[in-house]
């Protein structure tokens, strides 16, 4: 049974109810990952790199340093070369043994409740671990630069940042001038979980010309009552949840008062690029823009 | 001792058993025990601990199946009786009855009407009257509202007897009904039971520890010894010192009471300092 691609690394949604979830995932939800290890004396750039999250894998390959990667997490599936590399365990639970087996001199990780113990074990063994945050776009730029520096290619880091920002800018320009549309970004069907304010996804939504109807909710990924969705009347529903497209439609089937349902604007998007703070965010933003403002992407020339 | 003498001339037994045997696995508990009780008769069952008294009662109640022999209720084998019908004719008061939940005294008495009622068992006026009368006769009527688990052991025993009487059975089986009862209620209970025997032809089998109670109230007594019938007959016939001493492994005096003519059984005890004292000095504490 193939594993589903993991969602983006983010803190466990912190509704009080998630106590059980926290117990299950065996960590406190407070943010922040493992501390930066004392600077190992890096006489030369690391030759054997292990990224422990799909987003970081993508960054390393985007920097052109894919050749140095000797092991990846189980869910790392982009680019295609990454799939042929040895697996070192799941993104939520990396296998310390497997990491030791590929003898890295640099491990890259994102803050996550599931990998803390593993990261500590690696640090104790003297392996250099660099942690990059992945919550916002600012985190992304900083992360790309940090990874580039750790790999000894800072110039390429800057170039990558510039490239991705340009991609985002292109999207912004594409939908500029159009009235912003109210959007609901669906992350789970049942429970009904959406992207709230202060998330990377929320930022991409904004760039794509959408107004996140759940932007005012403090939690990153709140569970909403259906009636709240009805009340906020989104014009577009982007379904980036793990279920089927039919399931998403069934969820809102009878709610004709919601503009998105009445006009049939429920768009399913594949979650991968959208939930990884990596180099493909511009593509994710473009996909969002396509869903929110499809007319901006018609190639037919305007009449007259 | 196998064939019990026929009960009153001409009347068929309300309940009878022949050649009953029962075992728990390899351990034989009863063998070759027979009994016949005529309507209106009160038969006591006595014997030392482990002699099979309770097992006999359970077999008579149809709660266990004998290995050999059969029990007949009003002429029909127990197994041939449909459950409900049988419960209308045969009632059992178990030793030390308990309830899992806090039903009231009246509710427990009304449970006795269940075999006579339809499936949901709602009591009519007549059922209420019968239950209340039984409770009143056992002097627990005033406790009608009380929860059964808040009663003393004696009160609870009487409530369960009321339940059995409310069943209006033809045959009543009592398994040590007087263990928690004080003297007044011990005699009162048996008075009541005797009255029912006379009024309604109730046939009763009562397991008793107290030989004098048995002598005072029972028409006949069955003495069990290690699962077998050692003797059956009237108390006068059966309560002989040699038999009792053998069965109970305890020396006894048996006197004939001057007023009632019934046997009175007194434990003798071994001769020793107390006997010497009693014969010599005065006012020794020789019991009450």
């Amino acid at each position, binding site marked *: 049974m193939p594993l*589903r691609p993991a969602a983006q690394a983010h803190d466990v949604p912190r509704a009080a109810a998630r106590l059980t979830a926290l117990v299950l995932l065996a960590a406190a939800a407070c943010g922040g990952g493992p501390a930066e290890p004392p600077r190992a004396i890096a006489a030369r750039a690391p030759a054997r790199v292990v990224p422990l999250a799909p987003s970081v894998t993508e960054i390393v390959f985007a920097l052109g340093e894919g050749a140095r990667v000797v092991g990846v997490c189980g869910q790392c599936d982009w680019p295609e070369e990454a799939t042929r590399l040895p697996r070192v365990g799941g993104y939520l639970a990396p296998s310390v043994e497997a990491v030791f087996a590929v003898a890295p001199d640099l491990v890259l990780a994102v803050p996550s409740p599931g990998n803390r113990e593993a990261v500590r074990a690696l640090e104790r063994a003297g392996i250099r671990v660099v942690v990059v945050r992945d919550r916002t776009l600012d985190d992304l730029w900083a992360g790309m630069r940090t990874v580039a520096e750790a790999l000894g290619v800072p110039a390429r880091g800057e170039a990558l940042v510039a490239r991705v920002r340009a991609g985002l800018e292109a999207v912004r320009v594409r939908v500029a001038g159009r009235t912003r549309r109210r959007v609901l970004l669906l992350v*789970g069907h049942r429970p009904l979980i959406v992207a709230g304010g202060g998330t990377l996804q929320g930022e991409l939504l904004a760039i794509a010309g959408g107004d996140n109807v759940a932007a005012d909710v403090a*939690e990153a990924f709140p569970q909403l009552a259906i009636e709240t969705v*009805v009340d906020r009347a989104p014009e577009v529903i982007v379904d980036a949840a793990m*279920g*089927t497209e039919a399931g998403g439609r069934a969820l809102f089937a009878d*709610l004709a008062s919601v503009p998105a349902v009445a006009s049939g604007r429920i768009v399913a998007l594949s979650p991968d690029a959208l939930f990884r703070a990596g180099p493909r965010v511009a593509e994710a933003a473009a996909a969002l823009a396509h869903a929110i403002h499809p007319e901006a992407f018609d190639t037919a020339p305007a009449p007259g | 001792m196998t064939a019990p003498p026929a009960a009153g001339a001409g009347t068929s037994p309300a309940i009878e058993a022949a050649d009953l045997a029962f075992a728990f696995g390899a351990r034989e508990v009863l063998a070759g025990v027979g009994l016949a009780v005529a309507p209106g008769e009160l038969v006591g069952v006595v014997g030392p601990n482990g002699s099979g008294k309770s097992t006999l009662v359970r077999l008579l109640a*149809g*709660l266990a199946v004998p290995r050999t022999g059969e029990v007949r209720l009003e002429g029909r084998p127990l197994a041939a009786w449909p459950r409900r019908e049988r419960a209308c004719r045969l009632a059992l008061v178990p030793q030390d009855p308990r309830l899992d939940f806090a039903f009231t005294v009246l509710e427990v008495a009304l449970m006795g009407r269940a075999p006579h009622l339809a499936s949901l068992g709602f009591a009519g006026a007549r059922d209420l009257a019968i239950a209340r009368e039984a409770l009143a006769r056992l002097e627990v009527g005033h406790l009608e509202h009380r929860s059964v688990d808040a009663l003393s052991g004696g009160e609870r025993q009487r409530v369960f007897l009321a339940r059995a009487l409310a069943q209006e059975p033809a045959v009543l089986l009592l398994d040590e009904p007087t263990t928690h009862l004080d003297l007044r209620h011990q005699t009162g209970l048996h008075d009541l039971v005797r009255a029912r025997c006379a009024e309604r032809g109730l046939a009763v089998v009562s397991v008793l520890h107290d030989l004098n109670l048995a002598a005072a109230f029972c028409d006949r007594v069955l003495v069990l010894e290690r699962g077998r019938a050692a003797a059956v007959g009237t108390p006068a016939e059966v309560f002989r010192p040699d038999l009792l001493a053998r069965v109970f492994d305890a020396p006894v005096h048996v006197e004939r009471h001057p007023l009632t003519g019934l046997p009175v059984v007194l434990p003798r005890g071994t001769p020793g300092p107390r006997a010497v004292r009693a014969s010599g000095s005065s006012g020794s504490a020789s019991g009450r």
Partner: protein
Amino acid sequence: MRPAHLTVRRLALTCAALLVLLAASVAAATLIGPVRASLVAALAPGGAATADHAILFRARLPRVLLGAVVGASLAGAGAALQALLGNALADPHLLGVSAGAAVAGVVVLVAGADPVSPLVPLAAFLGALGTVAVVFLAARAGGRTSPHAILLVGVVCNALAASAIMLVNAIASYTQAQGVLFWIMGSLSSQSYALVALVALYALAGAAWLSRHAHALNLLAAGEEGARTLGVDVERTRRAVFLGASLLVGAAVSVSGMINFVGLIVPHLLRLVLGPDLRLLLPASFLGGAVFLVWADTLARTVLGASELPVGVVTAFLGGPFFLWLLRRSLRRASGG
């Protein structure tokens, strides 16, 4: 001090009162929620297209009704089971049926079914049926269904299911794990009226089935032998009640996951007030359980503002302390308090 015995009149009056309470609760709960909705606007001509209508009649009412039906099923099964096992601390999830339903539902979820798909409750119900068969067969020794054995086999089933679910959780993706957890914790959601009606009919059938044995269950309180001497077919009663309660629980869990404590708290509290006579306690538990869960879910829907809690969390928060209080009370009683 409660009346000395149960009359038809008292039964009818109590049930009528509870029914009124239930109707009022359903109405009130439908009007309560994190979002304002106007009943007047929804019922006005042309109101069917308004957001108010959608909120009240598509989002809230089906969910409230589902809560009532599930609560009824769990509490009714709980009352019957407590009588069957002779233990006031029994909870219907002890039967192990819930575990079987949960495992089946979880497997289907992780295998890729959408959580909204009807496959999930269907699979869960099949899982429940399978578990009932297993527990039933395993607990029969020599033609007798022993309550003791039922309990033990149920405990084993629960343990096995818990391990299975944790295993599945370990291999599932992060968001799948969320969905699985939500389902296991016990939660109500806005389902179709068709599904609600189906579960309601099922619950009614279950209630009727169990009520037929209410009197026999009363008599069972005096022990197996006591009941037999009163003419009860103990084996048949045990089988029927076990099956009825299990199927009720199976259906409830199939649509709402494992909502805890309802089947324990409601019958227990009602027994303290109404007495142990099941002819009253059983229907009262059905009705009382419905009221209880409707309000628990209302709390779950509103306590956090815009986002919501699964109802299983609310019942656990209520149930945990209650259970401790119960335990203290019975210990104090046992030591002669």
